[in-house]
Structures are given as structure tokens and as C-alpha cells.
């Protein structure tokens, strides 16, 4: 709760600095504010405090995920000065919107009432719609914003309709009350509740970018400014999946039968569509969009197998996915800056002149592909173990086949970097600042891979 207040205040201060056209203090304020929020967020550990009639629940689940979200945003901001170097104006609007989106995502992981879920999602989404179009004079960016807004508001409509039906059936929007109702009526579920749950699930599936509601993702990811894509692909996705997990585990865990099959089909479709489509992409940014879809599918597995340790597994998976994705996007931003293209060819021979960036990218790619001993493997392995422990063997086999396919497209940039000759004439020289940040991300990834057990057993 304090984290949300802090971040909101920081966002307003940022806007204020923008209004008086001061550029210098903007980012330091954001860094300090986010670090402070990160610490304040951890204060309530193991206390499970409820706020406003159980509207907002600060339990270990939400604290852990909020920690991940705040930290990820901090990483995104660390890369912001490099990405926005050519821009002269203070950019207070973009920073403030990212912070407001973060507030929305923090609410999403901690909601105790369906209305709060909706408020969180809308806070996140509305900010993201604007951010997607924040490159005002770029038609692709405008297209992305428009597509995202139209499809996204449609999905929000579904979600709201679903919430209404759930309320109609159970008489409450409180997760705990819905759970009681569900347990009482386990024998014969009213159709209204089943349909309501399905509609909510559709809305959530859209937000995490899972099939069959994933069509917006590639275009929006490709068109948005890369830094915003990074934010969308990490914070947006993790917040949505955490919210979905919370909804399912706290209200509908007892009635697996009414949603398990649907979600399993969604997950299978997501994994296959994501991986198979990424297979054919020559545009690396687009490839990451499909890779993000595929990872949404893997994270859905954690929702399906939501008993036992699945929350911890989801936490580990989110961490491994976000850090690897941010690192990869950071290298992508650098490559794009120098070569002017997102094509896979832009990576040719990168290792020769930029061994550090190439190394970080390699670690990120191998981690996303789930190659041991990196954290991506630990995450996938835990996910599969917890799913298989509850009898989801066919689902896990599909997921493993998906991982198999993914190795090919994740290894392509690696091969381009190490084994192909540079296509351009000039060497890419990165500023010393950037080197530190990329190294930081790579080191984090390796460190995380050393102690995955800690996070799995955390919540």
C-alpha cells in the first residue's frame, strides 16, 4: 500500500518537474522513488494486511510479485536514458505514465475484490494505450496504440461483463465471499457463474496475450517504442498473470472441473502458436512478441496447476522471463540504434566488436530457451514438475515440445552474433554507461540461476 502511495507521489513530482521544464532531476527522482517503494513494499512481509474491507490484500504473494514488478520497472528506467538520448525535452509525461501503469499493475497483484481487479487493469491498460502511441510522428506507433486501444477496451468489456455475472450469481465481488459461494454450490454450478468466469478468463487471457486472444500482441509490440514494448512485455504480462493466478487460486480452486479443460486448451494453443510463429520471424522484435506469447502459455500452466508450490514457481518463472527479456531488449535497442533495423541480420558479427553485449544476449536467449544451468531452465523445470505432479502430463509434453521448437529461434541471434561476419562496415560502439547496465542484467540472470530454490519456496 505504501509502495503504491509512494509511486503515485513520485509520478506527480515527475509531472511537476516537467511542468517547470527541469530535465536533470527527473530520473534521479524516479530511481530514488522506486527504490524507496521497493523497500516499503517489503515491510509488510509475513503480515497479510487487508485494506479497505479487503479491497487490497498485502500478503506474501502480492508483496513478492510487487517486488518483481517494481524492480523490473526500475530496470526499464535504467535503460531509459540510453533509449531517449536523442530526445531533448524532459519526457515527464512518458515517465509519469510508466509509473501510473506500474501502480495499476501493483493493484492487480493484490486485489481482494473484483472491482479492484478492474481498476488495476484499467489503470495499467489506459497508460499503456497512450505509451504505445508515444512516438507521435511514427505511423507504426500510432497504429499500435489504436489497435491496442480498440482490442483492449473490447477485452475490458468482456471482463466487466464477466464480473457483473459473477456478482449476479454469487451476490458479492469479494474473492473470499465468492469462494464460499462456490464451495456451497459445488454440486450444481449456476450457469451464470460459469459463463461469468469464462468471460473473466477471456478478458484476462487477452491481457496476458495468450491464444486465442493474442492477435494484438505482435503488431502492438512491433509498433510501440522499444522501451515501452519492454515494459509491456514484462510488467504488463507478469501483473496480468499474477492477477489471474490470484483470482483462480483464491476463488475457484475448488471447482477445477469447470475451467481446467478450457484453460488447458488455451495453454496448449498459446504455446504452440507462440513458438511456431516465432520460428518464422526475421524481425527480432516481432520474434520477441511471439516468444512473449509462448511464455504466457507456460505461465498459464502455473495457473492450471495452482496447488502446492505453483505460486512460487510462477514467481520464479516471472523473474526469469522478465530479466532475460529486458536484457535481450536492451541489446536489441543498442543494435537497432546502430544499424537502424530490427532484422536478425543486424546481429551479424556483434560478438567481434561488442563481446559483452553478445555474451549478455546469449545468456538471455539460452535462459529463455530453458537451457540448463541458467535460471530459465530452473523455472521451466519447476513448472513442469508441479504440473506433472497434478496429472497434467499431456500438457507438459506439449510444453516440452514447444521448448524444443523455441531453441531454434532463440539460438538464431546467438549464431548470428558469434559465427557470422558483420554486415555493416562500422563497429557498434556503445557508451560506457550502457555496458554497466547490460552487465548488471547478465550478472543478475546468472545469480538468479544459482539460487532458484529460494524463490520457489518463498510464497
Amino acid at each position, binding site marked *: 500500500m505504501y509502495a503504491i502511495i509512494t509511486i503515485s507521489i513520485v509520478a506527480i513530482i515527475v509531472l511537476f518537474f516537467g511542468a517547470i521544464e527541469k530535465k536533470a532531476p527527473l530520473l534521479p527522482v524516479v530511481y530514488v522513488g522506486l527504490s524507496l517503494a521497493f523497500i516499503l513494499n517489503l515491510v509488510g512481509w509475513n503480515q497479510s494486511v487487508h485494506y479497505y474491507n479487503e479491497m487490497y490484500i498485502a500478503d506474501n504473494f502480492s508483496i513478492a510479485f510487487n517486488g518483481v514488478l517494481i524492480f523490473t520497472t526500475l530496470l526499464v528506467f535504467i535503460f531509459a536514458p540510453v533509449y531517449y538520448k536523442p530526445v531533448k525535452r524532459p519526457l515527464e509525461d512518458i515517465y509519469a505514465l510508466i509509473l501510473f501503469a506500474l501502480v495499476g499493475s501493483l493493484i492487480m497483484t493484490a486485489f481482494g475484490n473484483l472491482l479492484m481487479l478492474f481498476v488495476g487493469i484499467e489503470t495499467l491498460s489506459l497508460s499503456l494505450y497512450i505509451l504505445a502511441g508515444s512516438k507521435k510522428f511514427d505511423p507504426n506507433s500510432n497504429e499500435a496504440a489504436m489497435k491496442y486501444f480498440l482490442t483492449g477496451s473490447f477485452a475490458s468489456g468482456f471482463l466487466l461483463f464477466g464480473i457483473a455475472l459473477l456478482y449476479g450469481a454469487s451476490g458479492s465481488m469479494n474473492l473470499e465471499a465468492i469462494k464460499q459461494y462456490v464451495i456451497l454450490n459445488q454440486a450444481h454450478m449456476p450457469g451464470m457463474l460459469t459463463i461469468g468466469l469464462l468471460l473473466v478468463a477471456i478478458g484476462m487471457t487477452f491481457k496476458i496475450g495468450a491464444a486465442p486472444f493474442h492477435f494484438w500482441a505482435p503488431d502492438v509490440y512491433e509498433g510501440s517504442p522499444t522501451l515501452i514494448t519492454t515494459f509491456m512485455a514484462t510488467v504488463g504480462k507478469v501483473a496480468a498473470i499474477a492477477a489471474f493466478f490470484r483470482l483462480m487460486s483464491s476463488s475457484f480452486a475448488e471447482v477445477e472441473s469447470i475451467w481446467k479443460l478450457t484453460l488447458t486448451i488455451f495453454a496448449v494453443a498459446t504455446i504452440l502458436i507462440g513458438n511456431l510463429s516465432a520460428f518464422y520471424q526475421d524481425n527480432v522484435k516481432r520474434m520477441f512478441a511471439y516468444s512473449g506469447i509462448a511464455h504466457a502459455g507456460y505461465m498459464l500452466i502455473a495457473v492450471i496447476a495452482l496447488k502446492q508450490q505453483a505460486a512460487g514457481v510462477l514467481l520464479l518463472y516471472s523473474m526469469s522471463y522478465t530479466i532475460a527479456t529486458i536484457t535481450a531488449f536492451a541489446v536489441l535497442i543498442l543494435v537497432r540504434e546502430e544499424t537502424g533495423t530490427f532484422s536478425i541480420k543486424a546481429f551479424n558479427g556483434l560478438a567481434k566488436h561488442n563481446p559483452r553485449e553478445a555474451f549478455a544476449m546469449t545468456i538471455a536467449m539460452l535462459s529463455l530457451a530453458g*537451457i540448463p*544451468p541458467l535460471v530459465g531452465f530452473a523455472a521451466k*523445470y519447476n513448472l513442469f*514438475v508441479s504440473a506433472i505432479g497434478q496429472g497434467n502430463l499431456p500438457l507438459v509434453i506439449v510444453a516440452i515440445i514447444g521448448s524444443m521448437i523455441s531453441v531454434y529461434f532463440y539460438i538464431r541471434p546467438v549464431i548470428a552474433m558469434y559465427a557470422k561476419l558483420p554486415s555493416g562496415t562500422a563497429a557498434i560502439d556503445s557508451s560506457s554507461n550502457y555496458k554497466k547496465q547490460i552487465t548488471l542484467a547478465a550478472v543478475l540472470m546468472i545469480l538468479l540461476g544459482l539460487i532458484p*530454490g529460494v524463490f520457489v519456496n518463498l510464497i
Partner: protein
Amino acid sequence: MIIVLLLVLPLLASLILFTGKLGKHSREFALIVSLLEFGVALVAGYAFTFANHKILNLSLNLKQLLDIDIIINIDAVSLLMIMLTTLLVPVIIASNNNRKVRNHNFFGLILLMQMALIGVFTASEMILFYIFWELAMIPIFLITAIWGGQNRLKISVKFLIYTVVGSFAMLIAILYLYTLTPAPHSFSFDAFYHLKLPYSVQVPVFLAFFLAFAIKIPLFPFHSWQAETYNVSPVQGSMLLAGIMLKMGLYGIIRFILPICPDVVAGGSLIFLPLILFGVIYGAIIAIRQPKLKKMIAFVSLSHVGIIALGLLSNNHYGIEGAILQMFSHGVNVVGFFLCYQIIVIRTGTDIISDLGGIASAAPKFATLFLVVVLANVALPLTNSFVGEFLILLGLFQSNIYIAVIAGLTIILGAVYMLRMFQQVMYGPQTAVTTNFRDLTVREMLLFVPIIISIFLVGVYPSFVLQMLQTAVK
């Protein structure tokens, strides 16, 4: 603690090499470390034979921190494979005298690979095993993709895809078996061995494991990556692949298929024995017709490892013992063969057999050593392969007489391709490229010392290894 040293020493050394601080001395450093590692392995061998076994086991419960339990231990089979690895890696490192490939990363990758291989051969926990198994793939992939010859990208990616498909199949099997272990579930080998699976469960488990191992070994229908990868890889890469890495697959058969799916193996391993047998003959026949020396080695290797796999799946203790011994012998022999190949290629610049000839008169020392290696590959009595192949055929004979008879043919075919190649390369009139063939230098002779010693040591006095294996096989 010896076991930790075995794993940590090459890992640390490879990390030091990756920093690039050693510059020109990278090769010497790598060589010294690998020799030290061999020393440590000898100590482990001494401890295994004469002292108590306690120091060879390590079990740490790190579930909270690492999410896996670390269980490592060395038994007779592991020890033999560790010996093979630590013996060959110094030879492989020292054999590199290609200036273009004299790169600190190259040696770092070789040592990293050594660490992963030792990990594979010692792990007693499924996930740990799987981690090492995958880790071993990355260095060899990079070695091929970066320092390989023509078409290296396409071929190394093909190799990668093949092995990844196999290992994921294995992962599925591992996860499935995990769910069958009694609660609380465990990934330790012991828990897996105590499963008494019904036949209907053993079949899919067998298929998944067999796919992974058959690709790695490689066995007949899954071998199409092999010849190309050997051909395109730098010689050191080929040595690692043929000498040590393909033993991972065979080792996997010993560790998983034999104890977990005994009924499938007893029932003749489904339809796979005839398929492997076909691969054995097929490899041998192609080897006869192969114009390029390196590709020929690849097909010879395909044929030889097929025999080893037949021995392992013969469901007979002679066959299994012979196969394990032959795993060691084949590693030594094939690396010896690649050494000879490298010497010929460096001196003449070609490996097309018909372009060579008359080397024996120019280089008598080389001719002698090459002949020993060739005869060891043909499985002449008193060389190491004889013992292994004899036992394998004996075992096969007792389990399935038809397969044994056809497999016996390979000894004849082996003599045909080996001696024919040797005759064409070493005798006859000298050709343009072989007239100025220098004989071996002292450094090169030294490279052959460990190879020749192990050829004769195992060939003349195999019983000390076999005794060790007998208890392990039972």
C-alpha cells in the same frame, strides 16, 4: 572431496581462460590443468580400488537453495569413464597446433566440456544429470559453429536440433518417472531404480530414453548429423565428440535403460536390435567406399558404437561387461585415429585417400604408430578392442545367435576398410603431396604415448578392469 575437485578444477580453469588474461599461455595453462585433473582422477581410482569408497560419494541437500539435491558418486563404470575423459582431454588439448584455433576461448570451452562430461558420469540425481547433459552440448556446439569448416553454421544447428530433441524426450521420461516415485517424490537414481514398472509403462519410458541416447551415440536411424558434424568440426572437436561425448549416450543406456526397463531389454529391446545391427553393417560398408579420411572415421565410429550398443542391450552380463570395456577402448582408439588423421592433414593438406600414398617409406615411425592404431581399431588380439568385441560377441551369441553371426561380419568388414585404407595411404608409390612427408617430431610422439599404453595395457591385461566391472554389472 576428490569428486568436488574433479568438477571444480576444470570449471575454474575454464573461467580463468574465458577472461582472456592468459593470452599466449592459454594452451599451456589448459594442458597443465588437464594433466592435474588426470592426476586427481588417478587418486580417485586408487581410492576406489584400495581405500574406502566414502570419499567418492557426495550428498548435499540443497533443496531450499538450489532446488535440487546434489548427489554425486563414483562407481566402477563412472570411474572408467572419468579415466577416459581425463586421459583424453590432455591429449586433445596438446594435439592442437593450429595457429588459427589457438584461442583462449577454445581451450576454455574444452575444459568446460570436460567438467560437464565428468558431471554426467558422476551425477546420481536425475536433474543434476540432465543439467550436465545439456551443459556438455553447449561447448561442442560453439566449437563447431565458431571454429568449424565450410557450412559450419547449418551443420552445427542441425546437430543442436537433433540433440535437443533427444534431451527433451529424456526430460519428459524423467519427469514422468518422478511422478511414479513414492511420495515425497525424489529425483535420485536410487528412487528410480526401486520402481518396479509394469511392462506397459516400461515401453514408453524405454522409447523416450532410447531416442535421447540413440541420437547422442548415434545409432542407425538417428545418425545423420554425425558424419557432417565430424567432418566440419575442428579435429579437437571431432575427438571430443567421437572419443568422449558419444559415450554419454552409451553411459545413459547403462544407467537408465538397463535398470529401469529390464523387461524391455530382456524382450529384445522392441525392434531396435535389428535396426542397430543394420546400422553397424551399413556404417562399415559406407566406410569401405568413403573417399575422405575424416568421413571414413565417422562411419567407422558409427559401426563400432553400434556394436557397443548391441552389447549393452544383449541382456547378458558378458555382453554388458565387454561393451563397457569397449566404450573405453573405442574412445582411446578413435582419438588415436584422429591424431594420425591430423598429422596427415597438416603435412599434406588433404584427407582424400586416393591422393595419398607411400607415406610409410618417408615416415617409418609414423607408419608404425599408425599401424598400431589401425590394428587396435580392427580388434586384433592383444589390443584393447579385441577383449571388448570378443566379450560383446560372446554375450550376443548367448542371447541371440542370428544377431551375433551378422555382427561378427563387421570384424571382417572392419579389416577390409581399415587395411584397405592403410594400404592406400601408407604404401604404394608416393604422390605429389606425400613426397616431402616429415616423420614425427618428439612432441607428436609424446601425444601417442597415452594412446599406445592404454591400447596394450587393456589388450594384454584386461582383467583388472573387468573384475571391477563384474561387481558393478551385477
